[in-house]
């Protein structure tokens, strides 16, 4: 499903962000990528999103080699991914409903499909009563729930969460992680990049730890176990 085959990424300024990194994440897995700041975690999400290309090695998602992807094919590839970011990335001028609908409109979904899908996904994240509210009127946790609903509305096979709890208090952060676990239980592969030790410790999922661009641990357990 997600395959990093001996990937090295060196930026133009000479920094080696990833050094011969290899891992495989199977369909339906829940995986944490952990490490300190500058360890190379964000480069992994950038490579998956095709924002960057590997210097050496290859990245395969659902059997697609991202190196061979043209600019024209990129949007269609990205539709297979759900994305959640630390800063939520919601459109401030659109309501919760419109923010989620927007992710469907870009894929040419019909009005009927949109009307059918959004109540389900809003109910999943517990925000059915806030569909007409704009993001600025929501708490951080609620905004992240909207972002999750937007990421999941098209039923992507893979969900990438890049520091999804970075801007949230511990209790809210845990709620979001539990939502991610619920999504994973429905069959979606979830890859969460984080440095929230307490959450990783509680979840007891597979953890890939990166340090100085290299994988130093890949196994089930807590942040420092």
């Amino acid at each position: 499903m997600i395959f990093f085959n001996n990937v090295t990424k060196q930026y133009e300024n000479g920094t080696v962000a990833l050094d011969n990194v290899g891992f495989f994440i199977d369909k339906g897995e829940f995986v944490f990528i952990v490490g300190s700041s500058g360890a190379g975690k964000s480069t992994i999400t950038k490579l998956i999103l095709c924002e960057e290309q590997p210097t050496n090695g290859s990245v395969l998602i659902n059997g697609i080699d991202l190196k061979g992807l043209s600019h024209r094919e990129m949007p269609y590839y990205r539709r297979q991914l759900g994305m959640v970011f630390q800063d939520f990335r919601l459109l401030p001028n659109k309501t919760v409903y419109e923010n989620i609908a927007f992710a469907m409109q870009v894929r040419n979904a019909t009005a009927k499909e949109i009307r059918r899908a959004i109540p389900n996904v809003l109910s999943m994240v517990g925000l059915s009563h806030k569909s007409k509210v704009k993001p600025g009127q929501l708490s951080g946790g609620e905004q992240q729930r909207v972002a999750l609903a937007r990421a999941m509305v098209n039923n992507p096979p893979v969900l990438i969460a890049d520091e999804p709890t970075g801007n949230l208090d511990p209790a809210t952060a845990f709620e979001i992680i539990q939502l991610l676990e619920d999504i994973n239980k429905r069959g979606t592969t979830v890859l969460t990049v984080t440095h929230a030790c307490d959450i990783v410790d509680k979840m007891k999922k597979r953890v890939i730890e990166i340090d100085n661009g290299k994988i130093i641990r890949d196994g089930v357990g807590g942040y420092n176990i």
Partner: protein
Amino acid sequence: MNSKTFKFFIVEGLKSFFKNGLLSAASVITVSLSLILFGVYVLFSMNLNYAAMQIETNYEIQIFIDENADSSLIGQIELGLGEIENINTITFVAKGQALKQWIDSMADNIEALEGLEDDNPLRDSFRITFKNLQYADETLSEIKAIQGVSYIKNNKDVVDKLVDITDKIKKSSFYFMLFFAVISIFIISNSIRITVFARRREVNIMKFVGATDWFIRLPFMIEGIIIGIVGAIISAIIVSSAYGYFLSTTGVLIETTVKLLKTGQVTRILIAYLAGGGIVLGALGSSLSLRKHLYV
């Protein structure tokens, strides 16, 4: 693309136009100013072409026929002239008619012309005008080759100068138009660039949820086109009103020297040029300013 998606783009473009009220107004003003300059150029160019056309169609040369030519030869000369492609009009002037016109024009010194009716020194002639002055030399050579043509009264220097001037005016008009088109694209693309910059986050989000380049580009292009159309309407009103005012205040003075096109003759063309210019420049300007943000 289905009609609902297209409606979505139109609505998004309109929403954005009204939502970014101040920015849209600033863009419309800039576009209007640029189109006003373009409109002035269009009017200037149309009037120059009109003046050049007047010079071309009114320029006349006189072809004199051999003294001994009979009516059959005159007929053959007329046929020969008719076959020349670049000749626009042919008027036969009989020597009797020419003398009468001369006498009429010399009414104050009629005594000097007494007795000429009995011994007319003038010749039969043809007055012709050209379709295109640029080919006057070739046409004159063709005329000279016709049997029975005695000589041609032609101020060749004047013709050459006229050809040269109209040619230069047409060429410089073209470069002038190109210059304004480039300036307009630059101004509009900068106006839209401000809108795109203000909404770069939105563009970024669009890319991550899987929007194609066209899905992102179209609302901005429609917004650019709306800006272009509103700018075109404003500039068309200003330019045509100013032109009407110019004609009404200076018309009598100018009519004695050069004939200018009437407001009614230019309005439709001016609106078409400005609307077309606004739409093309708005669409071009917006897509140029988006290019950088699409490669995420």
